[in-house]
C-alpha cells in the first residue's frame, strides 16, 4: 500500500484552489503525527481528494473542512493530538466502530459544525521508521444527524485495507517537505 504524506499546504489546496497570502502554515518538521492519504500510485488522487470534489459543493462546506484541517495540523504537532483538538474546541468523536481480527477499531470524525465532517483513522504501528500517521479518509456534508451507512462502510473498508497492509506501507517520495 502506498500513502502520500500531506503538508498543510497540500491539504489546503486539496480543498481550495489557492491559499491566500498571509495564511500561516505549520512546518511538516514540527508534526509528531504525519497526515496521510492512501493512494493507488503516487500520481493518482486519493479517495479523500475525490470525496472533496464529490461532497463539498459550496464555499461554506469547504470553509468548514479547511477549519478542521487547520485545527488538525495544529493538533498533530503534539503527541496527544486528541487533547489539542479538545483544547481547540473542535469536537472529535467516534463516528463508527467495528470488529476486525479480534480487536475493535474506530472511525473518528472531526466536527467543525453540525453537518460537515472530516473522517480519519490514526495509526501508531506498522508504518516505516516508527512513524505515526493520521489517515484522512473522507470529507462529507451530512444531510441528517446519523452517519450514513455508506460512509461507515467506505471508511471501514479503507481502514481494513490499512490494517492488512501494516508493515508493508510505503510512503510516496516527499517533495518540498523537510525530512524528519
Amino acid at each position, binding site marked *: 500500500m502506498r500513502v502520500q504524506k500531506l503538508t498543510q499546504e497540500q491539504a489546503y489546496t486539496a480543498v481550495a484552489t*489557492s*491559499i491566500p*497570502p*498571509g495564511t500561516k502554515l505549520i512546518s511538516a*518538521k514540527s508534526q509528531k503525527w504525519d497526515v496521510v492519504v492512501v493512494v493507488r500510485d503516487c500520481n493518482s488522487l486519493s479517495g479523500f481528494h475525490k470525496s472533496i470534489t464529490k461532497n463539498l459543493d459550496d464555499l461554506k462546506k469547504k470553509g468548514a473542512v479547511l477549519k478542521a484541517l*487547520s*485545527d488538525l495540523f495544529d493538533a498533530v*504537532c503534539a503527541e496527544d493530538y486528541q487533547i489539542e483538538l479538545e483544547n481547540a*474546541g473542535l469536537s472529535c468523536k467516534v463516528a463508527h466502530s467495528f470488529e476486525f481480527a479480534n480487536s475493535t477499531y474506530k472511525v473518528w470524525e472531526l466536527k*467543525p459544525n453540525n453537518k460537515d465532517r472530516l473522517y480519519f483513522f490514526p495509526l501508531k504501528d506498522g508504518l516505516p521508521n516508527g512513524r505515526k500517521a493520521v489517515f484522512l479518509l473522507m470529507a462529507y456534508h451530512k444531510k441528517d444527524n446519523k452517519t450514513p451507512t455508506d460512509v461507515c462502510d467506505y471508511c471501514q473498508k479503507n481502514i481494513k485495507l490499512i490494517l492488512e497492509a501494516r508493515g508493508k506501507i510505503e510512503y510516496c517520495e516527499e517533495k518540498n517537505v523537510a525530512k524528519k
Partner: protein
Amino acid sequence: MSRKNEIVANEVSERNALWAPVRRAQPIQQVRKVMKKKNLLNKDLAERMNISEQSVSRLLRGNQNIQIDTLYLLADALEEPLEICIGCEDNSGTYKFESEITVSKFEGSESSGVKVGKFCHIIDMDQHRRKFLTEAKNDSSLRSLNLYAAAG
C-alpha cells in the same frame, strides 16, 4: 487603480466565505501555544483580562470574529507583542488573488497578517525577509543602502 472594484469585490467575498473560519482560528492557535509555553490556564487569562472563564473558553474556540481590542487584550494578558501588518514597508510583495496567481501561491510575500508571540515552527515569509535584512546589515557593501532599517 489597476483592477475594477466589482471584480475585486467578488474575489474578496469568495475568499472571505472560504477562509474566514481558518483566519479566525489562526491567531487563537498562536494564543493557545503561548499559554501552553507559559503554563497559563484559562483561569489565569480570565483574571488577567478581567473577564469570566467562560468568555475565555469561548474566545479560545477560535470560531469568533474577535475585535481588534480583544486581540490586543489577549496579547497583553499573555505579555506578548501583537503585530498587525497590512502593507508594511518590509512587506514588499504584491497581494494576489486567485485569478492573478500563476507561478506560485507564495510568490513575493505576505502583505498582511496577525502574529501573536514568536513561533519557529510556523513558516513565516517575514522571517526570511528579516534574515536577509539582518545579513544585509552586516554586509558593508549593502549597509549604505539602509536595507536593515526594517529588520527590527
